[in-house]
Every structure is written in structure tokens, then in C-alpha cells.
């Protein structure tokens, strides 16, 4: 793939004796809306942290936009936006102060930062609480602000860890439209979510990680083709996910064990 935005080679991460991510080879083309799925504890957040510089890999390589992350960290970071796990907000700043801070950290000049900050706050419907510090925002508002901060510098790759969690339906609709427009303009979006319907609706390509190993990767059509569904009906992403992750029996909880609760 010549226009690959994200490439990993044998990306591995160990925490002591635990192999959290095991030799992952990912390829995401520029402009793709890419969904990264997996059950709890599969290694999704660890992978996204390694892709965004929050965690050093034990071994393997990360290449973003053709640049090796470890040797060109600053140049790479300039071109990516991140909504990390926990959102990474400075909770004692106001929304506007935080966006101004992030804009300046990405090297935008003051006037541009200010203008983008106002537009983003307006778009995210956060402009009417100028004096509130982020700690007083609701979870959904914090999520919207983290998204605004991730896009303020116009990144070429956007990493989103559960971006719609806690966001109201109205704002989620606007955000999806925004993200869709960004991919049309060539921005690559790497998204993790537990809501498979959202991933199915937004993403053109999907990878599934299970117990630290990449167990599936491809376009939705490719994955559907590999999974047998009911006749006459298109296989859903949930069915694909369950058929892949539940193959060894460890993905699906055994209801028989909780008979006393039924």
C-alpha cells in the first residue's frame, strides 16, 4: 500500500509477564474511516496508546504518514489528533482556555487559535459556558471538548478512543457528519468503540483484536464475505464480531454458570 497512513510492523507490548499486544501488523490507507474492535482487555487501548506516542512498544515499529514514530516523534505528532482514553483534559481550565492552550501547543498562532477555538466551541455547543471549568462539565461535554481539541490543528490522522460515549444524540449526529466530511477531505480516522452499530455505519474498514492478536482485518465487505450469515440477509458487524471473537468460547459469557440469578 503506497498511500498508507498507518502501518505497524510486529507491534508488541508486554507488561511484565502479560503480553498485551502481540506482533500486530496493521495497514490503514489514507482517508479511511477505520474501526478497531475487540472485547474488553483485548489490547485496543494499548495499541492506540502506542500509535499516539503515549506508550513505548516493547518491540516492533509504528509508521504514520510514512514517518517512523520513534525517530520523528515531533513531526508525526504535529499531524495527528488524539482523543485518548480518559480524554486527557486539564480539568481546571475553562473549555476556551483549554482549546487555546492546545492550539498554542500545536504551534498555531494566537489569532488562528482564537478563531478556531470560537468556531469549535460554537459547533460543539459549548460556547454558552465560558466561565465553567472543565471539571464542572458533564461527561458528554468533556467528550465534545476533547474532540474539539483533537481537531483544532487540522490533523491528517485522528485517533478516537470511544468518541461517542456519553455524547447526546444531537451532538453525535453532528460529530458523525463532521468526521465523515473530514474523511472525504483525506483525513484518516482510527476509531475504537464498543458500539458496533456506530462502527458499522461509519467505518469502511475494520480490524478486530482479541487477546492481543489481530484476528481480522479488511473492508466490511471482505469480512462479511468470510462469515456465513442467514440466507437472504446481510451479516451484521455484531455477528461478524461474535463469530470471530467467540470462536474459542472465551468471548461469550456462559449463562449456565449464573443459574441462581435466573
Amino acid at each position, binding site marked *: 500500500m503506497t498511500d498508507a497512513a498507518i502501518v505497524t510492523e510486529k507491534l508488541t507490548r508486554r507488561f511484565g509477564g502479560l503480553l498485551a499486544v502481540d506482533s500486530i501488523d496493521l495497514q490503514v490507507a489514507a482517508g479511511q474511516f477505520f474501526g478497531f474492535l475487540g472485547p474488553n482487555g483485548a489490547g485496543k487501548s494499548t495499541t492506540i496508546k502506542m500509535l*499516539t*506516542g*503515549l*506508550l*513505548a512498544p516493547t518491540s516492533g515499529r509504528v509508521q504514520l504518514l510514512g514517518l517512523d514514530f520513534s525517530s520523528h516523534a*515531533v*513531526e*508525526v*505528532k*504535529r499531524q*495527528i489528533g*488524539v482523543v*485518548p482514553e*480518559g*480524554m*486527557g*483534559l*486539564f*480539568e*481546571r*481550565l475553562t473549555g476556551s*482556555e483549554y482549546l*487555546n*492552550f*492546545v492550539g*498554542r*501547543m*500545536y*504551534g*498555531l*498562532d*494566537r*489569532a488562528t487559535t*482564537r478563531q478556531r477555538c470560537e468556531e469549535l466551541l460554537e459547533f460543539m455547543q459549548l*460556547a*454558552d*459556558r*465560558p*466561565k*465553567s*471549568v472543565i*471539571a*464542572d462539565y*458533564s461527561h458528554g461535554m468533556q467528550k465534545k471538548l476533547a474532540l474539539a*481539541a483533537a481537531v483544532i490543528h487540522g490533523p491528517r490522522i485522528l485517533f478516537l478512543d470511544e468518541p461517542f460515549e456519553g455524547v447526546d444524540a444531537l451532538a453525535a449526529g453532528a460529530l458523525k457528519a463532521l468526521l465523515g466530511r473530514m474523511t472525504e477531505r483525506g483525513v484518516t480516522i482510527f476509531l475504537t468503540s464498543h458500539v458496533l452499530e456506530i462502527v458499522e455505519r461509519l467505518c469502511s474498514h475494520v480490524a478486530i483484536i482479541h487477546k492481543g492478536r489481530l484476528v481480522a482485518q479488511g473492508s466490511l465487505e471482505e469480512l462479511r464475505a468470510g462469515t456465513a450469515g442467514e440466507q437472504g440477509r446481510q451479516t451484521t458487524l455484531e455477528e461478524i464480531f461474535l463469530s470471530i471473537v467467540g470462536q474459542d468460547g472465551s468471548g461469550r459469557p456462559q449463562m449456565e454458570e449464573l443459574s*441462581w*440469578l435466573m
Partner: protein
Amino acid sequence: MADVAVKLGVATQIRLVAQLRWRILRNNLRRKNSRLDLVGLIWAGIFSSALVIGLSFAFCWGTYTSVSNGHFGWLLLLFWSIFLFRQIVPIFIAGFGASFEFRTLLRFPLSLTAFYLVGLAYGFADFPAIASLCWLLAMAAGAGISSPNLLPAVFLILVLFVLMNTTLERLIGSWLERLLARRRTRELIFGFFILLSVSIQFIRPAITHYATGSSPATALRFLPYLSPFPPSLASRALAAAASGQDLSFLLSVAGLVAYIGVFGTLLWLRFAAQYRGEELGEAAAPARVAPRTAVGAEGARDTLRLLSPQVAAVVRKEFRYLSRNGFVLMSLLLPPLLVLLFTSQFGGKHPTVTHRGVSTELFFPGMMGYLILMLMTPAYNCFAYEGRGIQTYFTAPLRFRDVLLGKNLMHAGVLAFEIVPSIIMLALRIGLPSTPVFVATIAAVFFAVTGQFVIADWVSLSFPRKLEFGSMRGQRSSGVSMWIAFGVQILVTGICSLILFAGRWTNSPWLPAEAFIGLAAAAVAGYFAALDALSDVAEKKKEVLIETLCR
């Protein structure tokens, strides 16, 4: 569903809660970064035990002497000191120590009675309770040795006194919990507490200055006014038992029982309110929609334009964090206040501690050293308030040196803001030292601050500890960083003192100034040279940093 939860007895519930607290403590100590805290805990335990055992002998001897000789006034002193210790120390612990949120137990199926008893049982399980119990038992032993017949009466008094103390302490604690739940109230109480602590220090200079001829006998005149209070009642009951005054004994015991009844009822009402689901937190009120404002004047001029955008952004962010952190802001009042206090105690024409004022040649450098000692400590945990925001520093396209530089610049600004008015105050109250000592001291300040920034940045990156904004409870840096800060400050103070005295010994007044200017220049050069190395340290330590601060 057939097998619903079985109703547990209060004793089982208390035991379960005790086990829970023990497991929380044990698991905290098992964490890698807490091993050294365990050493600190053991040391604290040894010192506390020594204090308790030593004072137990004193209480035993005091009671024995007063009962044997009929000097019952001493008993008043003993009971009052235990009472004050028992009531005041838990407030400190509630304010500053780590504490278990006992109200969280409300989600379990506890009856109000069980909740009340579990809450009361908590009052017997902390250090002040155990220490005061030891001292009361020592008093009982002293009274028993003096007169064995007194023991039944003594035990009755002590049981009532312990119950009264516990109910009152829990009552104060539960009210404090309610008050401290709100950040603004917490900050106000903390500010009031700090100012009160410092103001108390001014009492002696004020008495010395205004009330010449006052004696301890004056204070004794106030004792009768204390007689209706529980410690006086306990003391009077013991004295009455020793001197065979049955009516006085019964009245005093009845008084103690009445206090227990009143405090117990008020505590019941407080716990009942909590049991019903009293909201203590700060639920965000719906915000009023504010009118949009045009870009303000602040946007037109960049006051930090000499700095790179990233460093300027960090400085601005640090300033905003400081201006919103009530505790830290109020603690900035302390250094000038303490300078004022010390000038009246040790310096000037009328020192209250020393007969002759300390020379400004020594006093000025001493005060500057003290200020640096106080003000540099937070630099050893400079990421404490970042929380999850720390991730932004690692996802943004910058070298970590910019973050450290921004933080250190802001800290240096705070130091200047504190030191300049202190110098002016010193100059006004006791005068400035000679020019060589003045120059040497200022150069020494530069050396001490810049030199410490390098070590403090490394310590902040290597041994971070998250602190909660606007909270007093459990807020302390990691044990390792505190010990390193302590060691470095002793070392720097030692070096500076040696150089200052070298000027005196060699009779070369400008020698210290020259030496400090050289050291300050070397420290500044070393600081900038170390920033890149510290960036590498940040990269290596980022996982620990993120894990600790995002917890």
C-alpha cells in the same frame, strides 16, 4: 429468586468494615511506589509509640502525685489535655490525612442503628483515640496505685469520658465532612486555619509588648469558667471520689452522662440525615447562558511573546491553575507573614525570643534560606495537579523541555513575587545587611533555586504523586520525593552556610558574593544543559507518569 441476602449482625458488619480498611491499607502498601511509604509509616509508628508510651508514664505519675497529695488541680490539666488532643488531632487528620469514606457503606443493607454503631466504632479506631485511651488507662493506674479503693469510680469516670469524647469527636467529624465537601468552604476553612495558626504565633510578641507584668496566675483566673465542660466534670468527679464527696461525685458523673446523651442525640440526627441520603457534593448548578463577548484586550497583546508558543502556553496554564487553587494561593500568604513573625521574634530592637536582636548580616541570609526552603518544596512534585491532562503533553508535538521550562518559569515568578515583598519588609523592619552580604545572598538564592530545579524536575518525573485540586485530605507528595527534597535542601543550605561563613573566617567580605555568582552562573548553565536530558527522562518515565496522574 430464593436466596436473598441474609441479615448480618452489627458485630459482623463492624468486623467486615475493619477487614475492608485493613485490605485497602495493605493493597496500597503493596503498590511499587508505596514500598518507601511503608518505611515512612514504620518510622511514624515508632515515633508515635514512643510519644504515647512516654506520655503514659507522665499521666500515670501526674495522677498518682495529685491523688496522693490532694493536688486535684493537676487532674484538671490532665483531663483537659487529653480532651483537646482527642478533639483537635482528628480534625488535622480529617483535613490532611488519607481517610476512608465511611458514608460509602450506605449502599449496603445497613439499618440506621447499625450505621450509627459502625460510625461510632470508627471513633475508637484512629490514633488519637488509641493514644488517649492509653493515657486514660495510665491515669487509672496512677490513681489505683495511690488508692486502690478508687479504681471502680475511676473506671466509671474513664468509660464515660471516653464515650463522651468519642461521640463529640464523631459529631465534629461528621459536621466537618459536610462542610469540607464543598471546595469553596474547604478553602475558606483552610485559609482560616492557616491564618489562625500563624496568628497564634503573634500572641506572645503582643503580650510581651503590651501586657508587661502579666503572669500565669492571670490565666488561672479563667479556670472557673471552664468548670461546666466535660473535662472539668471528669476531673471534679475524680477529685470528689478521692475526697469522699459522694454528692459532688454523682453530680459530676450525671453531668458527663448528660453530655453523652446530648452529643449522642445530635450525632444520631447527623447520621440519620446521612442515612436518608443527604447530598454533600457539589452538583453543578445549571449554568446561566452568558452573552458572547468579542475578543478581549487580552488577545491583542501577548505579554509572553518572548517565549516560544509552547512555553508561553504552559506558563499561562500554570498561572490559571495557581489562581484557581485556593489552598496553594492561601499558602502564598504564609511566607511574608512568617517573615513578619520572625522579625519580631529574632530581629530588630525588641526581639521576644532573644535578648539581643540577631544581626542582619545573619538574619537576612537566614530568612532568605527559610523562604527558599518553604517555597521550593512544591517544585519536587510539579505535575501533581495535571491529572489526565498530562497526556496532552505527550501527544502534543513538543520536546518535554518546553513543559519543564514553562513550569519552572512560573515557579520562579512565584518565588520572585514572594521574595521581593519579604525583602522590602525586612528592610523596613530590621534593615538590610551590608552590600557584600546582600549581593552574596541574592546570588545564593539564584544558585539554590536554579540548582534545585534540575533535581526537582527529575524527582517530579521519577516519583510523581497525584494531588486533588481543592482538597486537603490525603494530599502529600510521595515519600521518596519528600526525602530527596529534604536531603537536597539540607545540602544546599550547608553549602551556602559554609561559603557565607568562609567570608567571615577569611575576613574577605566579597568572597561569598564572588563564589555565589560563580555558582549561580554554573547552575543556570547546568540547568539549560540538563533540560534535554530531562526530556529523555520524561520519555522514559511517561508510562509511570501517565498511570499515576490519570488514576
